[in-house]
């Protein structure tokens, strides 16, 4: 500070000019040397104090211009105050920038003119950008999580599907083996009356090469009569959805064959079957055996009836003899004998009536099982 002391001007204009030039040098170059100036000690001290203040101002403003905000500036006065206010503002802005860096977007600058506007606008945009980025990151994170979950789900499904397919394959193999090696003939027939599958037993019966099984119309099945009969049986199953069992009699390789046939809906859609399974079982042997048994039964009845006839005659004749003899020699038991003979007679008469009934049964059996064939000629001895 320049001491506020009044003292009379003692130097010439040249001296004043030299002092002013020194001050101008100090302002222009940052330093000046007053050593050679012809001044009183007091004026020299004052000038040196002024030049020292100017040097401090120069040094401090140099630091500020280089962004060094840390130096303590102890010079007082309006010019120094302005520089210190500038330092204070810059320090505050630095502090605010640090807070913003740490995520505090509430920082605003006021009363620094255009700089405040620009700075505040920048902070708002930074905050907006950060919010946008956070939203974007959140969206990405969500998408990423969803994708990861989907991948996991697909992986799990794929593994499950693989296991299921393996199971299905095994299951299909088992069923195919069962179907293929079954004694029963198995067909699968579509609603279009096409045979989509036949097993080995059916192939053999139909004389198809098992290696060349292919889709073919039901009507083309060999032997022709089987196709016709199947077609007739299939129709109600396809139209009602209810399965049925029937025995089909078909001529096959010069003889009659009986096939016990069951038709079951296999795949059902809207709500009728689209495919049905036909199970055929050759029961010709059983049928033949039953017929044989029936025939033998009738013959046995025939035999029994003949025996009856003979037995009746053989009992009735001796009874008549006993009755005649007892009436010739009347005695105390004659009447009793006659009563007992009558009882026996009526028993034989009832056996005769039974024979008549048996004859009716025999005729019924003949009519139904042998088509009127005269059994007498077929009686086995």
């Amino acid at each position: 500070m320049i001491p506020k002391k009044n003292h009379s001007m003692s130097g010439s204009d040249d001296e004043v000019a030299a002092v002013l030039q020194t001050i101008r040098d100090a302002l222009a170059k940052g330093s000046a040397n007053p050593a050679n100036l012809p001044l009183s000690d007091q004026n020299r001290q004052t000038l040196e104090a002024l030049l020292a203040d100017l040097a401090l101002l120069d040094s401090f403003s140099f630091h500020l211009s280089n962004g060094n905000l840390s130096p303590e500036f102890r010079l007082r006065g309006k010019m120094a105050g302005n520089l210190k206010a500038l330092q204070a503002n810059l320090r505050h802005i630095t502090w605010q920038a640090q807070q913003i860096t740490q995520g505090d977007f509430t920082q605003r600058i006021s009363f620094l003119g255009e700089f405040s506007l620009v700075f505040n606008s920048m902070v708002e945009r930074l905050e907006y950008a950060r919010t946008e980025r956070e939203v974007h990151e959140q969206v990405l994170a969500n998408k990423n999580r969803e994708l990861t979950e989907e991948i996991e789900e697909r992986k799990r499904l794929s593994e499950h599907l693989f296991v299921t397919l393996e199971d299905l394959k095994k299951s299909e193999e088992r069923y195919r083996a069962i179907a293929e090696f079954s004694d029963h003939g198995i067909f699968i027939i579509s609603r279009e009356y096409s045979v989509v599958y036949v097993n080995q037993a059916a192939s053999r019966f139909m004389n198809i090469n098992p290696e060349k099984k292919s889709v073919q119309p039901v009507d083309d099945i060999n032997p022709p009569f089987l196709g016709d009969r199947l077609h007739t049986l299939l129709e109600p199953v396809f139209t009602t959805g209810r399965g049925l069992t029937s025995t089909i009699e078909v001529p096959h390789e010069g003889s009659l064959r009986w096939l016990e046939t069951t038709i079951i809906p296999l795949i059902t859609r809207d709500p009728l079957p689209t495919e049905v399974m036909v199970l055929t079982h050759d029961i010709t042997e059983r049928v033949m055996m039953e017929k044989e048994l029936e025939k033998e039964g009738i013959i046995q009845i025939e035999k029994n009836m003949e025996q009856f006839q003979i037995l009746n005659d053989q009992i009735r004749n001796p009874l008549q003899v006993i009755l005649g003899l007892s009436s010739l020699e009347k005695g105390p038991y004659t009447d009793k004998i006659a009563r007992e003979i009558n009882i026996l007679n009526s028993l034989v008469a009832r056996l005769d009536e039974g024979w008549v009934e048996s004859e009716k049964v025999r005729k019924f059996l003949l009519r139904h099982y042998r088509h009127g064939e005269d059994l007498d000629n077929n009686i086995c001895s």
Partner: protein
Amino acid sequence: MGVCLITGNIANEGKYKFTWDFIGDIKSGRPNLGFTTRLEVYRLMQYTLRDALEQEVGTKTADRIFYNAGKLAGTEFYRMVIVNAPDLNTFIKKCQDALQAMGIGILRIEKSDLENLSFILTVSEDLDCSGLPDIGFVVCTYDEGFIAGLLEAFSGKKFHVVEIDCWCTGDRTCRFTADLIR
């Protein structure tokens, strides 16, 4: 900014124990003149009061009384105006907004050392000193107390606040250091 009122007994402990009742119901009390007054009046009261105090109790004690009054004001100001701040930045932001809105000054932070609880802050256009001549010493003793009261109410810890630059030392802004009293 409006001032909330607490009704209560004035002069419970001592004649002038502070309560917000002394602030009064300004809205109904000053329907025409309102909340504001000329700054000269505020300064007139402050500096005549300081003069009177100084004459009665000496400079040092007068300054201490002023510091303590400022501290009480800072504590009450936090309680009634700032109310609550979850962290330092919120606290500073609320103080900046309130001080600016009420025309007290423009608060800025130059440095905050959270580890050591040490701060450098400035108040520009200060109520007490901005525009005063360079008289060679700092005068914002009341502000020192006020800042100490605010920090103490916020942190629950005691602070020592010292003004290092002031309009009255030829500066353009008042600069304060605030350090934790260990």
